[in-house]
């Protein structure tokens, strides 16, 4: 157990270092760009007065490490902003303030996160059921026609960009067949039923793409397990094919499926940019695309950091879960 605890601790330390380096890289890349930093930060629509204010706020005369230190201080202890006429306080996880709208970045992210989580959590259920199911089925029916058809379908799923699937789904279901109205996001707290209906197509398009990956992974690792000696022993003892598949081969695939799921979940929280943009879901991804287009730098930096946090966290969780499912990893 000592070895395992050590492994987890080392992994957490690694994640913290990665996050720190990530924040430095992001800070340097965005705030040390050539040209007038204050102008770029404030965005193309700022007046000269605003640009001057921003320049003061960013303390551009200070050396870089001092500025980064202030940024970290804001993140952990909060910060005060002078907006010219009054002083505004930005509480602890302070990521700054949008110069376009004047809102605090933390607030913006907190209002957008539930939407992204609704999308990804729902899609996750579908991609797990569909992906692992397809994978098990094609490992079970290996060599038959049905397996070839499934393999071809999953390959097509891997090759299709999510916005193509989403567009086609939306046009067929909402446009041609008129089974559903065009998605219009409704908050879960307002109307759970409408919420589910409005998310059905986004869930499906995101899940179909990811399911293909899960199907391929499940199938590959099940086939690897099926080729091992202990499976041959089970068969020799007369264990039926179904039991071999369901009880033993699937167990061999569990570790990698759990790990892939954690990674996919983490990257999907921020990575569902395309799905959110296509279906007009007011989540993190859509907000980021908007911020990028109007060059709202504090929002962009804040969002990239938050999304990076989820990705790094998910990768660490994936490694730990993998180690729980397969202790051999700890020894390596």
């Amino acid at each position, binding site marked *: 157990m000592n070895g395992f605890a050590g492994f987890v601790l080392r992994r957490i330390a690694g994640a913290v270092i990665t996050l720190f380096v990530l924040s430095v890289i992001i800070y340097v890349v965005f705030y040390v760009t050539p040209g007038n930093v204050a102008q770029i930060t404030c965005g193309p629509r700022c007046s000269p007065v605003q640009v001057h204010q921003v320049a003061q706020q960013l303390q551009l005369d200070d050396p870089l490490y001092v500025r980064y230190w202030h940024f970290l201080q804001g993140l952990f202890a909060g910060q005060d902003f002078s907006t010219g006429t009054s002083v505004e306080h930005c509480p602890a996880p302070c990521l700054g303030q949008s110069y376009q709208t004047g809102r605090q970045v933390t607030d913006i992210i907190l209002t957008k996160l539930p939407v992204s989580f609704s999308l990804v959590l729902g899609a996750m259920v579908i991609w797990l059921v569909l992906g692992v199911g397809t994978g098990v089925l094609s490992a079970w029916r290996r060599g038959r026609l049905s397996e070839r058809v499934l393999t071809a379908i999953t390959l097509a799923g891997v090759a299709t*960009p999510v916005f193509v699937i989403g567009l086609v789904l939306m*046009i067929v279901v909402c446009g041609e067949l008129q089974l559903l109205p065009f998605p219009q996001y409704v908050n879960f707290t307002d109307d759970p039923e409408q919420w589910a209906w409005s998310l059905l197509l986004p869930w499906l398009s995101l899940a179909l793409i990811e399911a293909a990956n899960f199907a391929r992974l499940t199938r590959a690792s099940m*086939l690897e397990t099926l080729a091992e000696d202990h499976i041959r022993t089970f068969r020799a003892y007369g264990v039926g094919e179904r039991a071999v598949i369901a009880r033993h081969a699937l167990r061999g695939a569990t570790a990698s499926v759990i790990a892939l799921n954690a990674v996919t979940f983490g990257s999907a929280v*921020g990575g*569902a*940019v395309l799905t959110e943009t296509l279906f007009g879901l007011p989540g993190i991804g859509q907000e980021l695309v908007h911020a990028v287009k109007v060059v709202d730098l504090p929002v962009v930096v804040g969002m990239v950091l938050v999304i990076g946090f989820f990705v790094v966290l998910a990768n660490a969780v994936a490694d730990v879960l993998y180690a729980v499912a397969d202790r051999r990893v700890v020894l390596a």
Partner: protein
Amino acid sequence: MSEALAAVETAGTDISVPAASGAHRFWRRLRTQRAALVAAAVVALLVLAALAAPLLTALEGQDPTTYHPTLIDSARGGVPIGSFGGASADHWLGVEPQTGRDMFARLVYGARVSLGVSLGATLVQVVLGVAMGVAAGLGNRWIDLILSRITDIFISMPLMIMALALLAIVPDSFPRPVLVALIISLVSGWSTTAKMVRAQTLALRNLDYVSASRLSGWSTSRTAVRELLPGLAAPVITYAALLIPQNISAEAALSFLGVGVKPPTPSWGQMLTSADVWYQAAPQYLLLPALALFVTVFAMTVLGDGVRVALDPRAASRLRIGTGRKRESRAEKAAQAPNAAAAKAAQVPDAAVVKKEGRA
């Protein structure tokens, strides 16, 4: 060549024998896979169309940027006049809504952007990945530690998001397709390549022929170039073949979001941005770029899988889509056992677990 000898050689499970040393052997193994052959033909056609884009459009008598206001119905919001989106002898695939630009010309020029950006990005990823991987694998403990840490950090970064954000701050004066290729390759792909190359280098460096070159006084760089790189060729080519379709998707995604390739340069992803508004009046405006994208990525993926199977005999027995597996399994049986452990160490990661991002 006797059957058994040929089998041992084709199997190539012994990593001390550079697996890609014979191009004809690779071709022979690729040829047994029907799906990969079809995909290769499709890819060849696409590349040809992209290269000959000016020729093809000259043949049609159009270009991708000229507006044709007479061919669209401004009273109905700019819908192309005529059936099938205004397809005619002059405009083979019709014209774009609102602008009246020629669809065929924009599609073939879009192929140039799509393939050019993805190939360029793949090249940068491979060069960077191999350099980092070999340096980490051959360097001393500290070099290895630092380079591996950097690689790990890049692997766990939100790449699509970084690309999106980076594209925001670079001024528009920079040539956009080059920029997109550069950013895609810097934020993704190279890190996983580097990790794989490092593992492979560590496996190769202690083999006799590499030690021999070091003992005979060759410098590290000469050993790397002359002795290691040939042994790395097979896994690196396999990896590159998997990266290409990912890069195509990444470019299309960024352009779809409006931060990638900017108009008037045509790009398939960019064409799809406003396609949902027009699908009823001009369905071809949605279907053509979507189809082009799908066919290209699908063909590249199948070809990539085929290349992997052709270079990695262990995969041949597991993957069963038209792999000519009877011949393969015979070869594998003959080459079995003694080198299984070495083969496992050298095995290229499965396509399914290659980290991919940006398609969500």
